[in-house]
Every structure is written in structure tokens, then in C-alpha cells.
């Protein structure tokens, strides 16, 4: 069973064994992070200081069980394809799992686009990237694996222009999925990142297969062409997303079809490629293998074309990461969650994204070939017109800018909107206003908390006074004043609590599954009930006290009369 003979039949390069010991590596820089993972640039000392990327997953923090992590690393270590970012090795370092991977010096296409091509890549460059991505997908699908999170953020480029698909955080094997050996290969978990997600993944009760990746691939093509996936003009802020789900009032994005966007010309072949990937019916979408033979790739350039046209003059991955992180921090301060922007080299599995996706209800998508964009078809609101509404939108600007731009640009648009869109615009503006309000609230949280704390102290003092009074004495006026003040403060506190709850609910709802949401509703009702009980108790106390006072007065006066 010697391994020396194993490669005699196949000229596969022998996998070099990287050291399984953290002391052999020296960490240079942080280049990405996710929910429970950080990605570092590092050198491997005994390997001639080879530069590597290390994804460090906090195992104690990550709720994913070992089986998932095991599956992920096993999938990775059993894949061998020039367009797939494989792992050199993985080992544990105390509570962390280190996955050592080749360092892709140009980073992800998402970060390249946002730092250097905010309006999208030139079409010949897109062709190269998409062809290489398809090769990876074709290999994966042939192996029975789904990637489940194809997007520019997971497509990495090396200094030599080689393109690799990365991050199998949510990838699944269709062979693993059913242990019974049945034929149907369907998966049912919701996974991926919402913008890129195929309709059948969002409505995941029917299960989905390789064609979901083809959909995401189509969205990725639009992302590369426009600088962001469709809908991404809406900031990925959780609160805003919430508003969208709640009312589905997309504004007419006419105003964003600016000169830049309009001047962009895409070839018929490109439009056709994207069009067939974004077919509603998964069965009508071509396989990755067939897509490789699409006419769009007929005159596709080589990898050096990417080096010359994309990589030259690009800031380093580290620099870009620092910039994005600074931006992310800023956005967080403003109360906007920027997690999707931070998905640099390897973003994390995005469990929150997965959860979020569950709440998006889009009944369908229409690919608009003229506009070269995707039109979501939204379910009709009960009170709305019976016709299915179609909303057009583009996606020309980068995500970071959108937080402010979006709400500001709305008032300027109504001039150009059609009648139908106007009502929707109002909805969006409302949503914007509400979102702003949410921001304000969250700033107020500290204050409210202080208030609550203060209230608590007051309450104690009051209770002391109350009991003291009941036992000892008759300072009626002072007592009444205190009680009135107390009731006032209770009401105020109650309102504050309700506000806080609504803010929290607003922010958190995206991360919660339906059951959790139900749980939360129950919890909230419980708190409300508790509050009501408390108030009731206070009022009863008050009543009782007044009764004592009154009867005391009565009996004393009565005694006087008698």
C-alpha cells in the first residue's frame, strides 16, 4: 500500500504535506472575518516561508456541530481541481480549527470590484472569470457536490490570474444527503447568501439541486457586470431588509439608471448566457458543463488578460481589507450592519444570511434582457391590485455607498415615476423613515437602559416609603404625590420597554427562524403580561392603601361623632 506507486498511473501532483502544528506558521495580517472565523495571511516557516491563508474557526463559538465542520473539511480535502481552492491541511489549535490554504494574492472578486471597479468589470474580463468558475462548478457537480454559495465574494484570484472558487462553508454533497440510498438527490436546508439565492432555494420545501448553483452563477454574472448583485442597491442592513420583507415596496429604481449604467453595452451572447441561467424553472437552466460550451466563451481570453486588465495597480488584499473594515465599522456606528461587505477572502458560512433568506418572499423573477437585469415578481398584497407587480431596478453602485445614498435619493425620484410605482415609492420612503427611526432608537438604548435602572432605584425607595407609611403613618399628601409620580414613571418605563422590544425585535427578526420568532412573540407576550400584572398589583396596592386611609379617616371621624 505504498503511496509511491499511487501516482504512477496518474500524473497528479503529489500533495505536499504542510506541518500540522501552529508553531510552524507565522501570522502576518488579518485579511477577512466572519461570524465565527477569522482569515489570516501567514507564512509557513519550514516550507521556505510559503505564504498561506489560514482560516481560523472558533469551535467553541460556532454553533455548527462537528459533523458539519467535518463534512466541510473532508469535502475540501477530497477535492482536487485547478479552479477550486483546496486546503493544504487542517488541524486544531486549542479551541480553534485552522484550515491552511493557498494564499490568493488578489483576493475575492467582490473586494476587487468594490475597490477598483464599482461599475462592474469589462465584459472580456467577466468572460474569463465566468469560464473558470464554470469549470469549478462543472467539476463539483460531477462529483455530486453543490457549492450553494456561488458569488463574487467566493471567487478568488491569484497574482497570476488563476481563478479559484472558495468557501465550502455551506456546500453539501448530494450523495451524503440521503443515507437510505434512494435515488432522489434533493437537499432541503436553506443555505447561501440571499441576493444570489435561487427561487427554489428560498422556497426550499421542494428541495433543490445543482441548478441552484447555476442560478447563483447567473446572479454572479450580473454582479460582475454591474458591480453588485440585483437588489444590492438596497443596503444589506438587517433593519432595512426587514422593511422590504414586510411590505415589498420596491421603489422604481429609474433614478439609478444613470449615464454610467446606460452607457454600458453588453453583448447579446452575454445576455443570453445570463438569461438562461436565470430561468424560473431549474430544469430549463443548462448544466455548468453545457454553459462552458456557450458562445459567450468562444473568444474568451486567457488568464494573463485578467492580470493586465484587472490586477494591475490593485491595492493588496490586506490594504483593501483594512479599508473595508474601517468602512464596516463606520457603518456599524451608524447602526447599519455591513456584514456582507466584509466578506473578503472567505466570509463565514453566513448563518444569519441563511436565516434571513427564509423571510424573503419573492414569488418569482423575470429576467429582463433589455435592461440586463433581474426583475423580482412580488406577491400581491391583499389590498393591492390583482395584477402581479413588476419592479425594475439596476445595480450600479457599490454596497458601501448605499446606506446614505438610498434614503436621500428617494425624494428626487418621484418626478420620473409612473403611477403604479409611486405608491411603492411611498412605501419605501416610509420604510426609510422607519429605518431611520430604528437607528435613533438604537442610539437611545443606552439612555433608556439608564432610565430603567434609575426607575428601579426609585421603585425600591418608593416601596420602602410605601411600607413605612402603611405601618407607621399618615403623610397622605406626600404619599399620593409619590404614588402618582410612581405610576407615571411606570408607564414611561413600560413604554420604553415596549420601544426597546420593538427595536430589538426589528433587528433580530432577520436572524430568527420562524419557531424562534414564535418563541419571541410568546416571550414578548409573557413580558407584557408580567408588566400588566405588575401594574395591576401596584394599582391594587394603591387602592388598598387608599382604602386604609379612607377607613382610618372614617373611623376617626366616626369616633368623634359617636
Amino acid at each position, binding site marked *: 500500500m505504498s503511496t509511491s506507486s499511487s501516482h504512477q498511473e496518474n500524473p497528479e501532483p503529489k500533495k505536499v504535506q504542510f506541518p500540522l502544528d501552529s508553531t510552524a506558521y507565522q501570522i502576518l495580517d488579518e485579511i477577512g472575518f466572519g461570524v465565527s472565523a477569522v482569515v489570516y495571511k501567514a507564512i509557513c516557516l519550514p516550507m521556505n516561508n510559503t505564504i498561506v491563508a489560514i482560516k481560523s474557526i472558533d469551535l467553541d463559538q460556532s454553533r455548527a456541530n462537528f459533523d458539519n465542520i467535518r463534512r466541510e473539511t473532508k469535502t475540501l480535502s*477530497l477535492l482536487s481541481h485547478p479552479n477550486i481552492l483546496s486546503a493544504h491541511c487542517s488541524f486544531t489549535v486549542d479551541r480553534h480549527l485552522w484550515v491552511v490554504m493557498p494564499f490568493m494574492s488578489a483576493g475575492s472578486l467582490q473586494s476587487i470590484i468594490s475597490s477598483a471597479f464599482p461599475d462592474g468589470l469589462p465584459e472580456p474580463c467577466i468572460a474569463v472569470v465566468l469560464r473558470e468558475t464554470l469549470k469549478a462548478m462543472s467539476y463539483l457537480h460531477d462529483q455530486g457536490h453543490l457549492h450553494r454559495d456561488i458569488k463574487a465574494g467566493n471567487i478568488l484570484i491569484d497574482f497570476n490570474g488563476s481563478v479559484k472558487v472558495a468557501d465550502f462553508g455551506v456546500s453539501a454533497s448530494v450523495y451524503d444527503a440521503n443515507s437510505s440510498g434512494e435515488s432522489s438527490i434533493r437537499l432541503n436546508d436553506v443555505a447561501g447568501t440571499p441576493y444570489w439565492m435561487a427561487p427554489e432555494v428560498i422556497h426550499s420545501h421542494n428541495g433543490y439541486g445543482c441548478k441552484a448553483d447555476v442560478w447563483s452563477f447567473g446572479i454572479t454574472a450580473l454582479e460582475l457586470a454591474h458591480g453588485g448583485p440585483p437588489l444590492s442597491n438596497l443596503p444589506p442592513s438587517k433593519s432595512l431588509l426587514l422593511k422590504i420583507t414586510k411590505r415589498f415596496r420596491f421603489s422604481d429604481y429609474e433614478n439609478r439608471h444613470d449615464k454610467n449604467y446606460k452607457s454600458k453595452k453588453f453583448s447579446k451572447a452575454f445576455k443570453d448566457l445570463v438569461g438562461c441561467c436565470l430561468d424560473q424553472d431549474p430544469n430549463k437552466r443548462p448544466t455548468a458543463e453545457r454553459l462552458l460550451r456557450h458562445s459567450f466563451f468562444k473568444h474568451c481570453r486567457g488568464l494573463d488578460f485578467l492580470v493586465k486588465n484587472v490586477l494591475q495597480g490593485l491595492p493588496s488584499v490586506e490594504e483593501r481589507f483594512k479599508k473595508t473594515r474601517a468602512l464596516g465599522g463606520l457603518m456599524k456606528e451608524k447602526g447599519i450592519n455591513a456584514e456582507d461587505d466584509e466578506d473578503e477572502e472567505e466570509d463565514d458560512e453566513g448563518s444569519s444570511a441563511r436565516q434571513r433568506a427564509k423571510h424573503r418572499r419573492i414569488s418569482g423573477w423575470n429576467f429582463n434582457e433589455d435592461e440586463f437585469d433581474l426583475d423580482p415578481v412580488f406577491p400581491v398584497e391583499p389590498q393591492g391590485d390583482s395584477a402581479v407587480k413588476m419592479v425594475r431596478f439596476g445595480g450600479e453602485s457599490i454596497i458601501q455607498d448605499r446606506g446614505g445614498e438610498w434614503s436621500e435619493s428617494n425624494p428626487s425620484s418621484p418626478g420620473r415615476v409612473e403611477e403604479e410605482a409611486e405608491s411603492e415609492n411611498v412605501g419605501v420612503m416610509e420604510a426609510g423613515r422607519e429605518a431611520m427611526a430604528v437607528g435613533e432608537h438604537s442610539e437611545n438604548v443606552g439612555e433608556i437602559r439608564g432610565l430603567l435602572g434609575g426607575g428601579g432605584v426609585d421603585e425600591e425607595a418608593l416601596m420602602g416609603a410605601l411600607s413605612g407609611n402603611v405601618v407607621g403613618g399618615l403623610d397622605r399628601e406626600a404619599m399620593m404625590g409619590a404614588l402618582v409620580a410612581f405610576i407615571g414613571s411606570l408607564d414611561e418605563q413600560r413604554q420604553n420597554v415596549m420601544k426597546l422590544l420593538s427595536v430589538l425585535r426589528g433587528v433580530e427578526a432577520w436572524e430568527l427562524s420562524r419557531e424562534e420568532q414564535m418563541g419571541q412573540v410568546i416571550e414578548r407576550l409573557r413580558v407584557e403580561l408580567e408588566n400588566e400584572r405588575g401594574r395591576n398589583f401596584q394599582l391594587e396596592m394603591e387602592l388598598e392603601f387608599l382604602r386604609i386611609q379612607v377607613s382610618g379617616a372614617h373611623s376617626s371621624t366616626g369616633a368623634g361623632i359617636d
Partner: protein
Amino acid sequence: MKGLFKSKPRTPADVVRQTRDLLIYAQRTPDSRESKREEKMSELCKNIREMKSILYGNSESEPVSEACAQLTQEFFKENTLRLLIMCLPKLNLEARKDATQVVANLQRQQVQSKLIASDYLEANIDLMDILIQGYGNTDMALHYGAMLRECIRHQTVARYVLESEHMKKFFDYIQLPNFDIAADAAATFKELLTRHKSTVAEFLSKNYDWFFAEYNSKLLESSNYITRRQAVKLLGDILLDRSNSAVMTRYVSSRDNLRILMNLLRESSKSIQIEAFHVFKLFAANQNKPADIMSILVANRSKLLRLFADFKIDKEDEQFEADKAQVVREIAALEPKDHS
């Protein structure tokens, strides 16, 4: 195919027979001309892939049960599985993966409602030795490991592995530095100790002493975080299984075991603490606590109560809260007994 084989449609049995011939060829030491050998090896890989698509279907067609049955019957009629396992290191990565999936699928195929794979393995049980030793080989570990896990779905095979000397090696395999391999070995270990209830119960009561001595010292007291976390979780699964109640009673009567679990309760890792609690509660709930267990619990009564007072899990879990309340009651009730 290059004219070697006519394009006449081959039956699933043909594919198996051809694979077998090529495996026999591959097994021989390579002395013939290299070019011919390469051609035959690639032919072999194609055949293995074809078996896979018969069993799993492909993008064009779903698997046909009749074809699967034919393939399975022919496969186990002769020694194809042994040949395949022996030749696996000589195949390329893709063929190894295909072969692993074929072997996995065959374990579940029924021919005339009989799992013939089980009969074959019973007669060729030494194959398990090869598969288990695969954990010592970085290149083969994941392939052999996956095959092994499928084979131990058969109760007789699982019993053989449990009772073999190999069982002791798992304590080392699951702590190998290579995470993929260690995790694969851990998954197999868990499967062995949880899948076939009666076999596991029998194994544990027969091998109680050495097994739990190793389990405690090598796994629960390991310096490796992952090892401890996985081990305490698995221990809970084992002891809480009703079929292992005799083993559980014995385990929770040992002072040493209690000491180890109490140390795990003090870990800074929340995950380990919670898993440790699920075992610790068995010590506390035991209505016939031996005197030495009792005295340890009494001596640590206040510390334990303090620990449980702010012992919470992120998610609301009624069962957990109920268990905790019961443990607290049990421990709180210890002192009066001591005074009386």
C-alpha cells in the same frame, strides 16, 4: 474505448466483470509496457465510474433497481470488493472517491430483499482490518474510513470491530493531528458505540474496565479541547441510552469518574460544561449513591450550587432547566441528611 470494447451496450454484470478483470491486472506488479498499463488503468477508472452511475444515476437518468440488483449480485459473487480495497491506493483520487461511493451504496442494496453485502463481509471479515489500518495512512484514511463506516452498518461487522484489538487503536486515531482523519475516526468510533444497541451494551459490559479506563484517561482527560468535547458528548449519548443502563449504573458509582466529570464541569468552555452536566446529572440523580460519591457531593455542595445558580444556556431549553432544577434539589437535599 478505442475499439477495445465494442459499443454494444454492456449489462451491469458485464461492467462488474470487466472491472474485476482490470483490478486483477492492476494488482499485479507493473512489469508490462507502461503505455498499455496506463490505458488499462484509465479503463478501470471508467468502469468504476460507470458502476457509480448505475447505482446512483446521473444527470440524465435515475438509478434502476433491477440494474442495481444485477450489479450487486455480480459484485459479491466473487471477490471484487477485496480486489477493489486492495487496489484502491493504486487508483487516482477521482477513482478512489468513486470506488468509495460504490462500496457505500452496495452495503444498502438488497437482492431479493436480502443484504448480500452483509453475508459477503461476514465471510471476508479480515477486510475490516485493512480498512481500519487505513487510519494510519494519510492518503487512504478518508477513503477507507468512509468504507468502514458503511460496513459497520451491518451488525455482525460492527461486533467484529468492537471485539477486535483495533478498538484500542481508535483512542489514538481520534487524536491524530490531521483534523480530517481524526474527525473521520471519531465519527466511526461514535457509530461503533451507538448504532447497534444490544451489541454495544454487550461490548461495554464485557469490556467495562479497560474501555472506561482508556476513555477517561485518554479522552476525557486529554489535553486536546476537541477530544474532550467530543468524548464527553459521546459519553452522555452512551450512558443515557436505555440499553446501556447497567453500564450507566456502574459508571456513576465510581468516585474517579465523578472527579473527572466535576473537572469538566469547571471548564471554561461552555460547550464542554453543558455536555459534562448531562453526565453529571446521572451521578446526582442516582438514588443509591455510594458513600464516597455522597461525601464528594456533600463536600462540594455549596460550590456546585453556586455553579448551577448561574449555569445557563443561550437557547431556552425546558428539559435542561428541569434537569438542572432536579440536580439542584438533589444536591441541596444532601446536607440535612448529613446532619441527621
